């Protein structure tokens, strides 16, 4: 769900309390990222925060930066992840994001922004150097993205789901939609349903007679779904919906029902092309019966259409060009961007200039294409129901939806090795790592992929008795090797002593790193037994002992983000003690 309203509430409440705040805006994304350009975080002087830009990778850095921006009192543009001068803060997904920090956003503009969103009108935020922050109603053509030195963030109203119907389905759908964060509205001839909805806080209207309904108003961000078993109720209401321009119109019932519905609407004088806008049977999952599954099925379809419309409100740009936008801000001294100096020095050359021009023309082209195709796309999606909707998803509306060009393939090579005592033969692309061979080809998913770069240890397995990072080893290089994974150490019925000790000493929290920790721990005790030296050994000629400090040093290649280290060391100590 989109957070714009909660962000502005947070800023407004901060202002009312007299607390200073920073509005942080995501202006550019390179590669993959969890949020789209135009989304915000709000940070208060106290460090309180609303919203997020990643799965926890940069948020604390954003809070610290925001507090510095408050101290400096000037806007600032910073890049995190790929391409960032802050090379110590990385996004594990490999992407990069540009963030614009705006201190002390104007109270009247925040209030105006909230008012626009609460009236269900599209909001345009203009972030420019001359007027740092202004809110106004967005025009149809306004897109999230850069326009010269200004960044424009467009926020469309939250999805509204208008449910018409009776029986068990409307309640299930309304609750599901509310959990998603949609605004909801019910029209029903069933008084008990209306009362239930009102008791939950959902606005609801009782339909007293078959016919048109009062206050049945749909905006372009509203989806309407009819859920009637008695189809006499729906004809006039569907006609009323077709006269408006909602995002989506769906109707419950079988294919046969839909043909009958069509005929009734034709008889009532509806335009045949307009009738094609109705999706029937509604939902992504064919032939659902129970109300909860139907609710998920319908909501997913509606959200898909809504997301596709929002995606077209962002200026699209090939990801490899996105980095240049950081320089665009930098050109304007009014913004002040101390952290971009390093970037600027190295790429303020002719090549950058030419890519900039390319980017701008790309933008214009995307915009004009989006302008023409917008209505066609959503109509095409609505014409033939779920099949066509799936086609929308596959069409390159966003850069993410476009399939990657296929890499030239390498000829597969045969390899055979022993895994947990069983001989396995595979034909593999030589690029396949041992980790991927185990997980994707042999379906031994106990071994985990964490960083995929040999830094975290989640992929640790034993090969010919020694532990290695299976992510940094090609499967084809293991011809004839004996591989032991966590599945080969023990089973749920018969745990390996190290597995039992991890359970007993609570040597894990989320459990993701645990298979690697356990394989490593087993191998570490063996290394100590074999006399392999370590960094913490004072005298290299003396055999090492399984002390706490030895185990901590030897386990340093296994990272646990939950921080279960001390319990892991206790589990290992128990097993080492039992062996000694």
């Amino acid at each position, binding site marked *: 769900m989109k957070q714009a309203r909660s962000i502005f509430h947070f800023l407004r409440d901060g202002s009312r309390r007299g607390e200073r705040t920073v509005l942080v805006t995501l202006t550019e994304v*390179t590669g993959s990222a969890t949020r789209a350009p135009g989304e915000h975080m709000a940070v208060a002087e106290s460090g309180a925060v609303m919203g997020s830009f990643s799965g926890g990778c940069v948020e604390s850095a954003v809070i610290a930066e925001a507090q510095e921006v408050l101290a400096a009192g000037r806007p600032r543009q910073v890049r995190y992840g*790929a*391409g960032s*001068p802050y*090379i*110590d803060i990385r996004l594990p997904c*490999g992407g*990069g994001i540009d963030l614009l920090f705006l201190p002390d956003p104007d109270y009247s503009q925040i209030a105006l922004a909230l008012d626009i969103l609460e009236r269900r009108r599209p909001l345009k935020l203009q972030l420019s150097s001359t007027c740092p922050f202004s809110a106004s109603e967005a025009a149809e053509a306004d897109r999230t993205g850069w326009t010269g030195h200004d960044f424009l963030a467009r926020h469309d109203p939250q999805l509204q789901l208008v449910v018409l119907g009776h029986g068990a389905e409307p309640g299930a759908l309304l609750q599901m939609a509310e959990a998603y964060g949609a605004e909801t509205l019910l029209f029903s001839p069933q008084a008990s349903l209306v009362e239930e909805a009102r008791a939950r806080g959902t606005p609801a209207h009782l339909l007293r007679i078959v016919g048109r309904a009062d206050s049945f108003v749909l905006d372009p961000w509203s989806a309407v779904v009819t859920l009637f078993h008695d189809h006499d109720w729906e004809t006039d209401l569907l006609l009323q919906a077709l006269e408006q321009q909602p995002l989506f119109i769906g109707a419950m019932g079988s294919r046969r029902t839909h043909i009958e519905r069509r005929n009734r609407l034709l008889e009532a004088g509806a335009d045949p092309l307009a009738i094609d806008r109705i999706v029937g049977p509604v939902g992504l999952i064919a032939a659902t019966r129970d109300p909860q599954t139907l609710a998920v099925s319908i909501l997913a379809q509606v959200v898909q259409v809504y997301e596709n419309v929002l995606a077209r409100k962002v200026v699209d740009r090939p990801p490899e060009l996105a*980095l240049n936008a950081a320089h665009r801000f930098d050109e304007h001294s009014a913004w002040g961007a101390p952290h971009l*100096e*390093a*970037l600027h*020095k*190295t*790429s303020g*050359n002719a090549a950058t200039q030419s890519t900039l021009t390319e980017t701008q023309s790309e933008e214009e082209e995307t915009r004009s294409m989006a302008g023409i195709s917008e209505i066609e796309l959503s109509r095409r999606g609505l014409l033939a129901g779920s099949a066509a909707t799936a086609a929308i998803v596959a069409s390159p509306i966003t850069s993410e939806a476009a399939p990657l060009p296929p*890499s*030239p*393939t*390498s*000829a597969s*090579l045969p390899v055979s090795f022993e895994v947990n005592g069983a001989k396995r033969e595979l034909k593999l*692309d*030589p*690029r396949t*790592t041992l980790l991927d061979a185990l997980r994707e080809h042999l379906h031994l998913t106990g071994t985990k992929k964490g960083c*995929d*770069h*040999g830094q975290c*240890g989640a992929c*640790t397995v034993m090969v010919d008795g*020694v*532990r*290695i*990072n299976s992510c*940094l*080893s*090609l499967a*084809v*290089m293991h*011809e004839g090797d004996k591989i032991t994974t966590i599945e080969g150490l023990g089973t749920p019925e018969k745990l390996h002593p190290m597995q039992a000790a991890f359970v007993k000493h609570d040597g894990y929290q989320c459990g993701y790193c645990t298979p690697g920790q356990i394989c*490593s721990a087993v*191998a*570490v005790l063996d*290394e100590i037994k*074999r*006399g*392999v*030296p370590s*960094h913490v*050994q004072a005298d*290299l*000629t003396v055999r090492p002992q399984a002390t706490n400090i030895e185990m*901590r*040093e*030897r*386990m*340093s*290649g*296994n990272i646990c983000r939950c921080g279960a280290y001390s319990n892991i060391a206790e589990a290992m100590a128990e097993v080492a003690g039992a062996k000694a």
Partner: protein
Amino acid sequence: MKAFTYERAKDPVAAARAAARPGARFIAGGTNLLDLMKIEVETPSHLIDVQDLGFDKIEKTRDGGLRIGALVTNTNLAADERVRRDYGVLTRAIVAGASGQLRNKASTAGNLLQRTRCPYFYDTNMACNKRKPGSGCAAIGGYSRQLGVIGVSDKCIATFPGDMAVAMRVLDAVIETVDATGQRRSIPIADFHRLWGDSPEVDTNLRSGELITAVTLPKPLGGTHLYEKVRDRASYAYALVSVAAVIQSDGTGRVAFGGVAPKPWRVEAADALLPRGAAAVTARAFQGATPTEDNKFKLPLATRALASVIAQAADQKGA
């Protein structure tokens, strides 16, 4: 990862011949090469797997030294009893590097050939003369805390990141190679790694297709063997500064520094100053240093790390 073809070589000269092809690379442990292939900093079109070439033994040489096969793993080299007894600085340097898992895979030759960990070399969004000659250096003027203070150039300020080679430099190891014609060559480690100069894309003085077969250590030096590594974490991190030293009971000895330069940094004229204390040694060894604002701390840190090493040597002599 870009597609490549793969072969498992059975014979060193044939392997060297195959490697002379453009785009071909040797692969042993693969811990560095595969990491870089995944992010397409390295894009070989052909990999020659050298694991069957039999270079996995450590043998005595006729003059009382050791010949370490190119494929001996870091773990096995560090654990070898002769190395622990006679070349302790080498064991200490190896176990100060990477993690147990990586040391089990990393080979002796591969460790010498590992590429810099400069973050701008890894980030393909950034200009890097080492990754893409002529594209510029984003590290100069960038975040350079980890980077080089001496022997660097205006094209590249990256460091050689390894620990093992720093100890080998103190021990005056010699790298043995074979090429596609069967010709053998011995390269003193002092001449193995290059300073970046104008072509930072070339890390070593190996010729195209030349294959490392072994590293030999001269006969043991005696003395106290120490390796002091200063880093941001207690374990599993690259050196900010490291010091490899062999110090004799009369206070003379040898010293090399890691984490500061494109190669293990040893200045023989500075070795001679060891009896006069750490400051005298580093003043000479780091003469002409060009640190950045971010990494100038490495110079006093090197002096202090060396002072600590000298004090430890004195302690061990007393004990």
